[in-house]
């Protein structure tokens, strides 16, 4: 994937660029708003990682508003030290697709950026999702693995749907809290782990090949092949 990073802090930018390259992405970097806007508007990217506070007269919000005014729908993830609720709301209102507060774990950033690009592609009117022999029918709201029907609670269904939509990607606990429970803070209790392990009981336990994997220091991943 081709990703643009607009970030003025050299260390943070270097860390992000290196990590993204290691994950196999092509990366461009701009260290001020003006250059960032120029690159974003003139070239094609799969995603943009955007700092809020930038030198060069154009801050992150202005950059994004200008970009959206030009009908550019490139997915944008804000990466900002402004972490108040209002800041997040402002960022999303300006057209941001996701908002991550500094300091951050790289695994979280990577998972979120990859989720963004996937979302951009698969937001079509799919009625069926499948990973390996696991199939989900979104219309009848039924799940089966191989020939066996699996009964899920409504919330388990949503959790699985989220994981299936991001199949093959790392999904962090925070992403699950936001995407499935609409929580925007980290509870102190390991609530997500418990729910994921319950889901695993239902979709993996009776079968030979596990689909739901735990990724150390990052989160979970649903995929058919061995990690």
């Amino acid at each position, binding site marked *: 994937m081709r990703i643009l990073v607009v970030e003025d802090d050299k260390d943070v930018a270097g860390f992000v660029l290196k990590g993204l390259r290691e994950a196999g992405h092509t990366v461009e970097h701009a260290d001020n708003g003006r250059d960032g806007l120029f690159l974003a508007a003139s070239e094609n990217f799969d995603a943009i990682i955007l700092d809020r506070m930038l030198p060069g007269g154009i801050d992150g919000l202005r950059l994004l508003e200008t970009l959206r005014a030009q009908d550019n729908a490139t997915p944008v993830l804000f990466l900002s030290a402004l972490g108040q*609720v*209002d800041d997040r709301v402002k960022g999303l209102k300006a057209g941001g697709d996701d908002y991550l507060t500094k300091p951050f774990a790289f695994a979280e950033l990577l998972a979120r950026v990859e989720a963004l690009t996937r979302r951009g592609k698969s937001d079509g009117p799919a009625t069926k999702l499948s990973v390996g022999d696991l199939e989900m029918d979104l219309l009848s709201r039924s799940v089966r693995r191989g020939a066996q029907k699996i009964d899920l609670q409504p919330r388990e269904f949503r959790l699985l749907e989220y994981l299936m939509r991001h199949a093959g990607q790392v999904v962090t606990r925070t992403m699950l809290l936001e995407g499935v429970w609409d929580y925007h*803070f*980290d*509870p102190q*209790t390991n609530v997500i782990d418990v*729910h994921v392990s*319950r889901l695993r009981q239902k979709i993996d336990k009776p079968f030979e090949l596990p689909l739901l994997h735990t990724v150390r220091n990052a989160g979970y991943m649903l995929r058919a092949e061995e990690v």
Partner: protein
Amino acid sequence: METIPAPAVEAAESRPGRAEAPSETRRAKPLIRSTGIRFALTYAVVFGLSAFTLAFSLWYSTIGLLQRQVESAILNDAAALNEHYQIGGLPSLINAIHSRLTDASDSDGIYLLLDPLGNHIIGNLDQWPRGLNQINTWYELPVTRKGVRSISLLRAYTLSGGEQLLIGRDVSARTQLRNVMRDALLWALGLMIFLGLLGALLIRSMFRRMMRDISTTTRAIALGDLTRRIPKHGDGDEFDELAEIINDMLERISRLMDGVRQVSNAIAHDLRTPITRARARLEDAALHAHTEEDLQSAIERAMLDLDGVVGVFEALLRIAEIEAGSRRSAFAAIDLTPMLEDIDELYRAVAEERGLILDTRIDSPLPLLGDRELVQQAVANLLDNALKFSASGTTIRFSARVEEALIEISIADSGPGISEEDRNRATERFFRAESARSTAGSGLGLALVAAVAQLHNGTLRLASNNPGLRAILTLPARRK
């Protein structure tokens, strides 16, 4: 005395300060701006105007009355004499005047009748008074009667035969009275002005004395002495009321200051611990790590420590954000029921995992004007706590109901609870009860819940659950 309030109002409305003392303006220029002086001058002007009104009405009702009585006596006399002249001719008139002149009971009467040539016919005046030129007009002139000069009120008439008739009354007595009264009133006025100014000065000094208490206190506070309070005089007047309001404000400020001081101390202490730990790990690894694995694990653990520090910062900022009240602009009309049911569902799994019983009763609807996300976090914090401190096999009761326009969310566990003396401090930032020291946590959870409650004009109450803790979050319900 209905006339008095009118000028008083007028004086209060017109700002007399500037016009009153033109000769003083240069010296008093900075003084005019002082409220005390303005008060005092307004008072003096109101006082003077009412005194003047009083004097004027007194004057009008005595001297004026006497004057009008004399005038009507002369007019009646003139009408009677004219009648004599019309009926009996000149002899009858002379007769009538003569009888009036000889009547001892009316010694104030002045009469003079001249023939058309100006010769004296009858009367007690030797000659026509000088200065009396027009007929049918009131004159007040000095005349000489029987060799005595006196002031008289006079009126002249021309009769149909060409004779000229002068009728008058000696008003010396009235004039004397008037003089006495004028003098008295002038003295009184002078005294009133003096008293008025004295009163003004008194008011000013009273005002200043009362202001002095407030200004010395506030100045001392501005200089950093937050312990000072404005003394009260105890008579419950407006200044006492003001002093009380200001003292309340100072109380609140000093409590906030204490809070800030305590929080910054706590931050310094509570953050130093994990930072020290992280630093020690990294330094130890840099010096002693022999294998890459040692290094890796030291770095990972240091990162966890730093994540903890970040978590504490985030919680602190969040609490500060809530306490600043800016989230109030994002308040919306919501029903808490679905949100609480979601939380219940989220935590039920954890409770079951740990062998706890979560006994939930959530009423519907629970209408609230507020911030869904914040209430969600507050309730989640309370449940986090309950789960953290509960032993396997015990029950956590989670209930939400609306009663008398109050939404009451209660979470009760059977854990160690919080001792009576610690309960008041439990919502302070970084406070951790002795029994909770060994458990993970930042000591910010309840502080956040309390802040959320306060933002919604609600309360967080901590009570004993015998055994355990019962946390009751009360929020005012939204009115239909």
